[in-house]
């Protein structure tokens, strides 16, 4: 059981902000932090990792005290055995991609893992390049791989997939999930993507202005608000084409386009760029697995 109890004054967009977080995390669970930019997600990870010192509070893993303001204990980052993927990569500019990963190896650890990870992030051809020559997404992949080299028991990932294209993102999400399960890691992920969270996490904490506003299972949290029995979506009107009395409206619902036929009367008020609800009361959808 991991217990975080963190208090610290931070500057924020609304003046002084009192970060005050109490979190309990099962070992082996996959937890997400979600919240607005500036809510305090990165700060929580940095305190857990020992890079930022809370003013008050404690960090416990089972009986081990990593930090306690009362007992004046503050374990060094190096001793916490936590893997941290930084939001801004923090690759070592003096080392090639491969050297960045090799550096992360623990003493006596097999180099095989490095080769595996390089293959995974598809940077075999670039493994001998210095980070400054990599694209944004390539840097992010290297940073992820470097964090995974040591297979630390606790993994903190600060928006690890934000600069990646869809395919690569799916692939790396799957890989992180795989090793999370395989090695029984405790993982905390910061993400702005609901689908990512629902896909990956057992538990979500929603941060708002330095406090936890809600927490629970992602599916419950997001479902409560958004799921209904009806087949109902929110989307944006992309196009309206007139054909006789009818109008064909194209609505973008996330990545999917839906064409809806509407009569002129339905159209009152709706124009391109509007957000709309698309719903159907009587709907019995077919479901098919895709390859």
């Amino acid at each position, binding site marked *: 059981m991991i217990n975080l109890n963190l208090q610290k004054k931070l500057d924020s967009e609304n003046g002084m902000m009192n970060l005050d977080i109490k979190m309990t995390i099962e070992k082996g669970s996959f937890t997400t932090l979600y919240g607005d930019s500036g809510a305090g997600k990165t700060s929580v990870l940095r305190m857990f*990792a*020992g*890079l930022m010192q809370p003013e008050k509070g404690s960090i416990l893993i089972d009986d081990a005290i990593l930090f306690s303001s009362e007992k004046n204990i503050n374990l*060094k*980052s*190096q001793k916490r*055995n*936590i*893997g*941290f993927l*930084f939001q*801004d990569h*923090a*690759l*070592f*500019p*003096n*080392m090639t991609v491969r050297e960045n990963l090799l*550096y*992360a190896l*623990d003493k006596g650890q097999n180099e095989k893992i490095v080769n595996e990870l390089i293959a995974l992030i598809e940077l075999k051809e670039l493994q001998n390049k*210095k980070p*400054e020559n990599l694209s944004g997404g390539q840097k992010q992949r290297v940073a992820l791989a*470097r964090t995974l*080299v*040591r297979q*630390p028991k606790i993994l903190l990932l600060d928006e690890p997939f934000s600069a990646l294209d869809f395919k690569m993102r799916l692939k790396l999400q799957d890989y992180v999930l795989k090793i999370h399960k395989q090695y029984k890691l405790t993982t905390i992920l910061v993400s702005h993507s609901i689908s990512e969270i629902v896909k990956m996490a057992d538990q979500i904490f929603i941060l708002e202005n330095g406090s936890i506003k809600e927490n629970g299972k992602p599916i419950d949290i997001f479902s409560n608000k958004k799921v209904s029995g009806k087949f109902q979506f929110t989307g944006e009107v992309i196009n309206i084409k007139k054909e006789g009395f009818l109008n064909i409206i194209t609505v973008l619902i996330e990545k999917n386009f839906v064409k809806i036929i509407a009569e002129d009367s339905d159209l009152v008020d709706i124009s391109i760029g509007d957000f709309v609800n698309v719903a159907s009361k009587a709907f019995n959808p077919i479901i098919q697995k895709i390859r």
Partner: protein
Amino acid sequence: MIDWQPLFLTFKLAFITAILLFFLAIPLAFWLSNSKSKIKPVIETLVSMPLVLPPTVLGFYLLIAFSPANSFGAWLENYFGLKLIFSFPGLVIASVIYSLPFMVHPIQSGFSNLSKNLSEASYMLGKSKTTTLFKILLPNIKPSLLTGIILSFAHTIGEFGVVLMIGGNIPGQTKVASIAIYDEVEMLNYSAANTYSFILFIISFLILLSVYLVNGGYLNRISK
């Protein structure tokens, strides 16, 4: 015609001094760049202080300190068998003290210019401060290291006052090129002085130039 021994001695002194300083200055500069201690500005200042005294004066004070007639010098001699006056080891120590700021300050400012990100990332990979220092921080401040090495190397070559005082101008032991040139100038032997200077200049020029060329090549390669 030309006595090569002083030249040889000079470069030996400069190399040894630069190397010793390098290893001495790194921990000191690292500490200075990290420390939040109150005495830090005092140490920073003290490091620069050997510079403000005229070299001969500094040399004189060192001479007094190192002299076996005095307690510190006697202690060195009795316990370590170290005779620092009128000896090559004494020259080395004096040069190290005198050139200390040329090595410490550039390295320290290199560390300060470096982003804290890098050391944090290294710590998160479970690496110790020492590993981080040698594998991450130092390789990323190469230009500063180079500056430190070049300045202290070149300065030791030209050094004169301290060396003269501590060394006593003993041929083959402490008579370095700068003293030889000085002697020639004083004797109005300008052509001999010119020859010495020219040789000193050319050798130093070639050493430094090759350092810069290698370094430039290296930098170009990584920035490509």
